[in-house]
């Protein structure tokens, strides 16, 4: 058997600029397995130094146009932790609603526009629409609904403007949120209805024993706060993150790679969350999980795709619950905290693609002196390489299209490459 090489110099249908270089030798031995990120560097952590505490979330938002909401909420919580600011329950609920809208938006884009074309045999959603118009329209409706929720709560869907340190500059009125309920109900039904199609995709399989990591909280499916947990027994506070997760630089990529200190690579994202926190899912999400026969013992990266559908349903049902429950005090002003002393704070949240970490240190006038940001794709990038290493000999042995199959594997993680270039410690 001759050696095979897959070299994808610009991976399509993922956010940002990344490449794959995999080489499998004649005997099935993997000679190279690189997931490189050539996305240009933007040095966020360098220029955040010298900026003020109240603009951190606004600037950090610009790390990523797909998950700006996750970066904003994480930055806000890190700042609030640093200054000892306690936000109201209403703020927590509205932030949760905002974050869930980002999950719905991002997951529906990933599942229906970036992933589905692989399994239905198209090069993109536009050509897929010719034969699967209903599916594409359903996905567009769901995405639009999510953006409308984000716009109402955050003022704007891409780079929201009303979430600030301590709360919101404007609270939406109950009468503005309630009209969304009917659309959310419909979307819930429609997305549940796609479970059969998504489950029917001909997934390659890749059984790996992996460490899965996410945040988890006692009371509900963790989104914006919780303890860092893994399926191998880690249970830590967000402040202790750096004791357990370390990074290293690799010469072929602009993104650093994360590892569990003393162990190895790990996977973050929808599958990790569903596996670790499934007991807190809503009934519809559990039904989706059952309909798609999602195996909770699995750490197959391809199963992230099914997990995304489960989480779309969860996010819709939870949003319905929040809108119904909320008693909105529209006059509420953002909470304030103490200033005047140097301080530091960290926060962990779940971005659509998984675990997101921000930490900032401030001087006594609230100016940033240090920043540390680790996005989900930086957490996952070493795991992607492990997966490619395990997966590629199987593809070669089975006579499959190595480049395409490797691309599909990378897309299953839904990497967000613009984000990933900012994994850094100052």
């Amino acid at each position, binding site marked *: 058997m001759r050696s095979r090489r897959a070299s994808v110099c610009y991976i*399509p249908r993922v956010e940002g*600029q990344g490449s794959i270089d995999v080489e499998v030798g004649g005997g099935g031995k993997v000679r190279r397995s690189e997931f490189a990120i050539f996305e240009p*560097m933007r040095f966020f952590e360098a220029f955040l130094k010298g900026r003020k505490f109240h*603009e951190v979330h606004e600037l950090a938002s610009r790390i990523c146009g797909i998950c700006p909401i996750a970066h904003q909420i994480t930055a806000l919580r890190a700042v609030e932790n640093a200054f000892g600011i306690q936000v109201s329950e209403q703020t927590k609920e509205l932030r949760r609603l905002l974050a869930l809208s980002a999950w719905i938006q991002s997951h529906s884009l990933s599942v229906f526009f970036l992933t589905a074309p692989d399994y239905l045999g198209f090069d993109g959603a536009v050509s897929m629409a010719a034969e699967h118009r209903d599916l594409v329209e359903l996905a567009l409706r769901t*995405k639009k609904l999510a953006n409308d929720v984000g716009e109402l709560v955050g*003022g704007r869907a891409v780079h929201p403007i009303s979430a600030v340190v301590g709360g919101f500059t404007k609270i939406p009125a109950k009468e503005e949120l309630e009209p969304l309920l009917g659309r959310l109900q419909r979307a819930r039904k429609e997305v549940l209805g796609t479970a059969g199609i998504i489950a029917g995709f001909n997934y390659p399989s890749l059984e790996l024993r992996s460490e899965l990591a996410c945040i988890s909280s006692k009371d509900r499916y963790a989104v914006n706060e919780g303890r860092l947990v893994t399926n191998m027994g880690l249970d830590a506070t967000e402040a202790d993150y750096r004791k357990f997760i370390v990074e290293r630089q690799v010469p072929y990529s602009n993104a650093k790679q994360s590892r569990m200190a003393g162990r190895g690579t790990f996977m973050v994202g929808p599958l990790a969350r569903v596996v670790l926190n499934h007991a807190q899912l809503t009934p519809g999400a559990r039904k989706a999980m059952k309909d798609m026969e999602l195996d909770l013992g699995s750490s197959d990266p391809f199963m992230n795709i099914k997990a995304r559908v489960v989480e779309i349903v969860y996010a819709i049902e939870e949003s319905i619950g929040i809108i119904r429950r909320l008693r909105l005090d529209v006059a509420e002003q953002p909470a304030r905290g103490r200033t005047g002393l140097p301080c530091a704070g960290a926060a962990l949240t779940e971005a659509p693609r998984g675990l997101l970490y921000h930490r900032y240190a401030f001087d006594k006038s609230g100016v940033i002196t240090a920043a540390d940001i680790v996005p989900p794709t930086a957490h996952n990038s070493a795991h992607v390489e492990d997966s490619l290493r395990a997966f590629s000999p199987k593809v070669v042995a089975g006579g499959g299209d190595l480049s395409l199959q490797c691309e599909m594997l990378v897309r299953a993680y839904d990497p967000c490459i613009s984000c990933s270039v900012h994994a850094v410690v100052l």
Partner: protein
Amino acid sequence: MVDEKPRLAVFKFTGCAGCQMELLRLEDELLQIAERLDVTYFMMAQSKFDLGPYDLCLIEGSVSTPRELEELKRIRAASRVLVAFGDCAVAGCVPSIRNWISQYKAESSVYENTAHLVSFRLQGIGEYVTVDGVLPGCPPHKALILEAITSALQGIRPDLKYHPVCVECKLRENVCILRSLGKPCMGPVTRAGCGAICPTYCRECEGCYGPMSDANAEHLARLFKKNGMSDDDAVRKFRKYAGMTDEFRTEAGL
């Protein structure tokens, strides 16, 4: 050929993909656009691509590597109408804040080993090639994107706004954030197009659409300081979305 569809290309350089996301927010129009245009390059959305020529080319992001510069010149030569799509492509947006830090300092504060890094100070695409149109905003509102696409399809000048955010703000009957509440609002020097969302959400404009034509940044900075803002904070205010532009660079400390 008469019935050949115009060809659209969407490129991303140094940026966050938010402008492409805003383009994808045209959920009601996307399929119609796809019927009238042939999308020939859009890596985030589809696998097939070709290298031109393009009738309309949207470039998101700024230029910060030699590879991008080379690519930009190639794309310019292949494009009939080339649009700087969003603030990064116009003048560097938020990431341009790093242009005030030396290259070595920026690199070494982020990476232990800087030997293999290839990057230079970032600039808008107009620094290097002729640009036919400019879509301001971080991100440009989807209505502006639609306007740019439809007018390019018809071969007419797009109806973009050149007046300040204040005009949109008055039309929404907001209380003046600057005069009445004394908050440091960038509205008077910032180009309209967003619909004055920040003042409508009870907060000051941060200037994310960049300068309006003929902006008087110097006067506004003086007003901020009169209202108690420190010199450093005033610099931060102008060195955010458009610090590199001619209109803001003095106040941004260049």
